[in-house]
């Protein structure tokens, strides 16, 4: 089931490996490299149609300065944080609770509820565009950060619940039973027994949802119009001039906008610990 370790592969594979791996990596990273190169291209290159060749000069400083000077990208990034952080906290917190309930308690309709959560993930969100827009409008949440947050939380909690429920089901149930026999209340079992063991799941899910919501473009354009609530993904578009596409600036802005999810990944990395439940059972 697992790939054979490269040390055990036939000799020709072992020879080809160090050659092919960098090539595969470069092919895989080509789009990113393209954006990075474009972000330091002088305007003249784009005007002359030099989209993919070597840049005629290094204009990184100008381009990146222009991004911050010509557009309110700072505000956009702040908006993105205002949308993403509460969404991550809200969706993960809610799903910890709902996942715990679905994993630990057997109640009437529990299975149906769980399947509803699962089925929700299969709804293509595009078909919700018009109703959700109308809903936010009628609730007075159109064009606000709150509207976006509420919608994202609602939409992400389904997947998060599925994820958390399956993680909790995998924990040794005897831990919960042991705590119950010890007289620990259900809330405290959740808080002091289950939650600490969910750390890797919470970290993984936070990174996933952070990236997902941060990169959202669709709802940012559907639910927001003005600058004051515009997240960076949609806001970047304003870097294009009214008549000319300023791809070098859009590229530079994109790279800036891509940094927070990467930072988030490295921040959370130390929580991705395997085997947190080691030692709970058996000899």
């Amino acid at each position, binding site marked *: 089931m697992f790939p054979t370790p490269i040390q055990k592969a036939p000799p020709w594979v072992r020879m080809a490996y160090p050659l092919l791996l960098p090539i595969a990596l470069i092919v895989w990273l080509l789009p990113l490299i393209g954006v990075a190169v474009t972000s330091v291209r002088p305007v003249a290159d784009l005007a002359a149609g030099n989209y993919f060749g070597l840049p005629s000069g290094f204009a990184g400083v100008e381009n990146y300065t222009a991004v911050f000077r010509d557009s309110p990208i700072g505000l956009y990034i702040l908006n993105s944080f205002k949308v993403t952080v509460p969404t991550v906290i809200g969706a993960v917190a809610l799903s910890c609770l709902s996942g715990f309930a679905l994993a630990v308690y057997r109640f009437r309709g529990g299975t149906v509820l769980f399947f509803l959560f699962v089925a929700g993930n299969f709804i293509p969100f595009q078909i919700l565009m018009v109703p959700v827009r109308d809903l936010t409008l009628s609730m007075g949440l159109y064009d606000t950060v709150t509207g976006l947050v509420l919608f994202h939380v609602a939409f992400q909690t389904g997947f998060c619940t599925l994820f958390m429920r399956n993680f909790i089901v995998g924990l*040794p149930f*005897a831990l919960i039973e042991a*705590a*119950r*026999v*010890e007289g620990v209340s259900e809330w405290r079992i959740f808080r002091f027994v289950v939650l600490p063991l969910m750390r890797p799941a919470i970290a993984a899910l936070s990174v996933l949802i952070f990236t997902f919501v941060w990169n959202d473009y669709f709802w940012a354009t559907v639910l927001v119009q003005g600058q004051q609530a515009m997240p960076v993904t949609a806001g970047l578009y304003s870097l294009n001039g009214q008549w000319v596409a300023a791809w070098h600036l859009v590229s530079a802005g994109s790279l800036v906008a891509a940094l927070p999810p990467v930072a988030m990944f490295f921040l959370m990395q130390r929580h991705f610990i395997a085997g947190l439940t080691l*030692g709970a*059972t*058996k000899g």
Partner: protein
Amino acid sequence: MAEICLRGVRKVFGGVSVIKGVDLTIADGAFCVFVGPSGCGKSTLLRLIAGLEDINDGSLSIGGADMTRVDPSDRGVAMVFQSYALYPHMTVRDNIGFGLKMTGHPASLIEERTRNAARMLRLDPLLDRKPAQLSGGQRQRVAIGRAIVREPEVFLFDEPLSNLDAALRVQMRTELLALHQDLKATMIYVTHDQVEAMTMADTIVVLSAGCVEQIGAPLDLYHRPRNLFVAGFIGSPTMNILPVTAASADDGRVVVTLPGGVALTLRAPDVPRASFDTGMRLGIRPEHLSATGMGDATLTGRVRLTEHLGSETLIVVTLPDGAEATVKADGLAQARPGDTLAIGVNAAACHLFDRDGLAILNGDLRS
């Protein structure tokens, strides 16, 4: 006072009846062992007492208070799980004190009880370790420590020693018994190992397929099994069961025809004559057969295999009608496979079972 009383307790899992009406009274301060083959419902019965499963029918009381529908947290019992179920993210100290802390006991009391339990279980040097850094036996002791500090009136153990190696198991067995002497609490102990049951229990409950087969002191079960199941389950090596025909004789005696046509006369003063029949079974333990041929009757058979255990020798013999019998002989017995062996039968140690497998005569050597 924590007498445990079960009345007609039943448990059904998805249409399958797992506990089929158990009546049982466990005296305060008893060390009661539930024993039975794997899957007979021992764990389920224990979990019903702990409150981890709902009782479908019947009632349960602990210390006189009805507990049938009470939450596990309010039953005042402590349970040691087969898998230990230690909280992996807490140190040994926190594991032991967790229940007390969560139920609002003062830190000084938790500290004191943890220290006492750690001393009793020799866990002092390990208090700051996490479960992952402990050996199986140490984890086992932490699980017990976690139960002790709550000072419950009832302890429930679900096969607590089955994950340990043989030497540790014997050691933990004596430690648990010492603990019982110290704490004087009611303990219920589940095992599938009849040796564990015999050595530890003051009351054994033999279970089979969700029913209680017999309740009694270890030696009572050994000497007076109520039916074929208990006869076969208690004792190692298992009791020999031979098909026989029984016919009553004068002055409270019965003449049993053994395989090979040998007649054996048993004293059965209190058994009605009508109970004797063809198609009965005679039970006799390997230790009550003699390889020297001395006894109230002599069977002859061919040795099929021998097991030399040092202190004793087990000789498996094929009898003329194809039945097999095991004889426990002394360690120096010379029998070899293929030899013909004369086996002496001690009439006073014979049990007689009717067609339904119920004992109608118990050869209790004590009386």
